[in-house]
């Protein structure tokens, strides 16, 4: 059975998700008082960077089945936008505003993009 190399998308996805979760925990553990945003912003930036690296690596991967990837990822994206939207609604409903809301919103954006990317990748690699 011949095999072609693909970038370590799943491993990078785990790292990116772990960074996002760590940032979210840092914020949640400090509420409702003043939240120091330095660490959460750094974790968010690192997570977004890993996600961009993942997207670029996947876009450049030769022989990767992009049609299968997009066929799956678009529906997963829809589902995870709904989930992220509900979580965002809870934060807004609770009166979260300003920098904290911005970091949480961007974290949910990374989450809602990266999970469908991982699902699409795992399916498409075997197609």
């Amino acid at each position, binding site marked *: 059975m011949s095999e072609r190399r693909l970038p370590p998308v799943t491993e990078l996805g785990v790292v990116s998700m772990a960074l996002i979760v760590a940032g979210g925990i840092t914020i949640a553990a*400090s509420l409702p008082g003043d939240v120091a945003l330095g660490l959460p912003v750094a974790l968010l930036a690192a997570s977004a960077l890993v996600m961009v690296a993942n997207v670029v690596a996947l876009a450049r991967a030769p022989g990767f089945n992009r049609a299968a990837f997009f066929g799956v990822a678009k529906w997963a994206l829809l589902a995870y936008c709904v989930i992220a939207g509900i979580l965002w609604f*809870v934060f807004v409903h609770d009166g979260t505003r300003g920098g904290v809301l911005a970091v949480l919103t961007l974290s949910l954006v990374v989450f809602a993009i990266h999970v469908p990317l991982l699902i699409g990748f795992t399916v498409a690699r075997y197609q």
Partner: protein
Amino acid sequence: MLASMTDVAVPVPAAAPEAPPRPDFEIVPLRGIPIVGAVLVALVAAILANKLWALEFFHVAAGGLWTSFDLFLGFVLGPILGRLAIPARVELTTRLMPKLLLIMPTLVTCTLASGWQLGRLLGTVESGYVNHSWIVASYIVVGVMAVIALAVLEPANVAVLFELKKPRPDPQIIGGLMKRFIYTAGITGAMQVATLIIMTKIATG
């Protein structure tokens, strides 16, 4: 465990050997989507109403089911699945996994969204709460489970179903992905034991 994950694309052979027979199935059971939609609408209504009973219902019911599912899949069904003959494993997988694709994200969303709102209502998520360290521990446990479930378990679950949809599914690919499913289900099951300890401590003060 992660190191053992495949990082190569494996082209399916023209005629996969010993392809197991499998029943026809939907990867996402479309009939279940209206039910999921209704549950999520009820969840949003409960959060908007901000009533203790409604939030408690969603958090306890969805959280209890989430924990039960993870413990059952990780410690009961997972090991059984690993020892079943291939045709039996395929039969069970095509009936179980599509339902899990709808059930698990719905339970997790309901548990987390209602749990956060409940915590705001009761003051248990505030940093001055007497058991704050236990609350932070619960965030960490949920965070670890989320990373494993979303980045490893769910993609493997979906990929198994797509493989089984092929006219000649490759048993090697299915076996590899099922191994991922069984191991990660075991880890999340173990994390749920920590959830039970933390939540019962918080509930008793």
